[in-house]
């Protein structure tokens, strides 16, 4: 937690967060005077999800995401809490930077989508072409911008040229300088209603999307693929794919266990808000699901390291994923029933 100055001289408190987009959203809301935590934003914006996208590749590895589409968390949270917000994209990089400077001068703080590779303060392990990293610009300095990146503990400095390149990173899925900020927030937000909406939409996304690659179905689809992968692709390539999968479970700012611990934290807060014992039980169940995702990632890492070859096989890793899928199906069906009983 560090205090930083904004363009109009008012203080901004930088909080460390696990995930970039929910961290940015909660920081923007907190800056407007609403006291809201990161897990709460993640739950209200229905961040939890699963999708396996074999046709979209980043650095040669298929995407298997554990969160909802980028940019959706901010939009959903702001809408459900009744906040007014502005989003913009630009064709011309120069216009994008000018607009950013102008908005910063009015004392606003601005969220932006960037490509992780081009941010100069990143260390080597973060430098890959991931085009959905969210950061906040606080103010303009002499030769650049003061950046609050919620996944790190302290605010950073970023030169203007590098920020421009990161915001308008050439290539597929160019963020086009996507920026967003809040105009005003509802002074008395309907927190309970927003929680219910968020949970119901999460249940729908996990259980009812009629495509085999999303939600619980997607997990089963991927698990079967993992089991077959050493025969189909060869051991080395299968290991490479598995490493890509571990990265999506543990590495990309998930808060551990593929966002499942963060969702458990949200359910705990919601249980206090509604005074509901059922939600508290579900929070414990979600924590257990997070533990089984972590067990999967550790098993997968052992396969990659080739420790205890006879015990740690691809079949075991795939089996653990199938167990996760079964538990999550059960969990979201229960959550659906519990949410219907809650009153705003």
């Amino acid at each position, binding site marked *: 937690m560090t205090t930083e100055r904004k363009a109009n001289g008012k203080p901004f408190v930088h909080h460390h967060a*696990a995930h970039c987009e929910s961290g940015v959203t909660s920081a923007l809301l907190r800056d407007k005077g609403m006291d809201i935590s990161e897990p709460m934003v993640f739950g209200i914006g229905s961040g939890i999800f699963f999708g396996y996208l074999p046709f979209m590749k980043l650095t040669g590895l298929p995407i298997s995401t554990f969160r909802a589409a980028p940019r959706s968390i901010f939009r959903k949270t702001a809408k459900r809490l009744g906040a007014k917000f502005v989003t913009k994209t630009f064709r011309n990089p120069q216009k994008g930077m000018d607009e950013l400077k102008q908005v910063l001068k009015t004392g606003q703080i601005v969220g932006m989508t960037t490509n992780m590779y081009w941010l100069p303060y990143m*260390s080597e392990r973060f430098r890959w072409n991931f085009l959905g990293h969210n950061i906040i610009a606080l103010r303009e300095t002499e030769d650049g911008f003061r950046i609050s990146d919620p996944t790190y503990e302290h605010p950073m400095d970023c030169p203007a040229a590098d920020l421009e390149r990161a915001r308008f990173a050439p290539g597929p899925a160019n963020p086009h300088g996507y920026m967003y900020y809040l105009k005003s927030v509802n002074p008395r937000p309907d927190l309970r209603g927003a929680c219910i909406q968020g949970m119901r939409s999460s249940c729908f996304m996990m259980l009812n999307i009629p495509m085999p690659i999303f939600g619980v179905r997607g997990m089963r689809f991927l698990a079967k693929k993992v089991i077959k992968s050493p025969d189909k692709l060869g051991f080395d390539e299968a290991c490479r794919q598995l490493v890509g999968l571990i990265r999506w*479970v543990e590495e990309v700012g998930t808060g551990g266990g593929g966002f499942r611990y963060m969702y458990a*934290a949200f359910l705990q807060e919601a249980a206090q808000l509604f005074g509901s014992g059922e939600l508290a039980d579900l929070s414990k169940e979600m924590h257990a699901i997070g533990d089984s995702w972590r067990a999967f990632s550790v098993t997968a890492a052992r396969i990659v390291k080739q420790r205890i070859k006879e015990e740690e096989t691809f079949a075991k890793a795939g089996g653990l994923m199938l167990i996760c899928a079964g538990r999550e199906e059960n969990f979201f069906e229960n959550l659906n029933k519990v949410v219907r009983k809650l009153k705003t």
Partner: protein
Amino acid sequence: MELEKEIFKDGMPKGYYTQNDNGKYVLETNHCWSEEVCVAVIVSEVRANIEKARKEVLSGLKSPLYYHMEVRQMDPKFLAKAAGIAVFRVKRHMRPEIFAKLKPSVLERYAAVLAVSLEELKTVPNR
């Protein structure tokens, strides 16, 4: 093993949610062991790719463009989309004899996308 410990000593710990003694969720910075393994594999793969590309360029099998593409962790498809040049042309430009004959206008487009100067684009570091 050393690489795993080394790349995590960069002073940029990420947050992870864990329960404290009272059962409340708090943010801590202890990462899981599997993350170390996965990041070490990916980082060493990227480094090996760059080194391999450098050797291939020096031995005259590939053009310097191939090396700079690997440094930026792109593939021909990505680079083609970024530079606005067809994929088959980008792949063709990986051949040294064809790269040597390229017009400055094409080279400038590559240089802008890869964020290197024109002189750098034509050479590779000779360590």
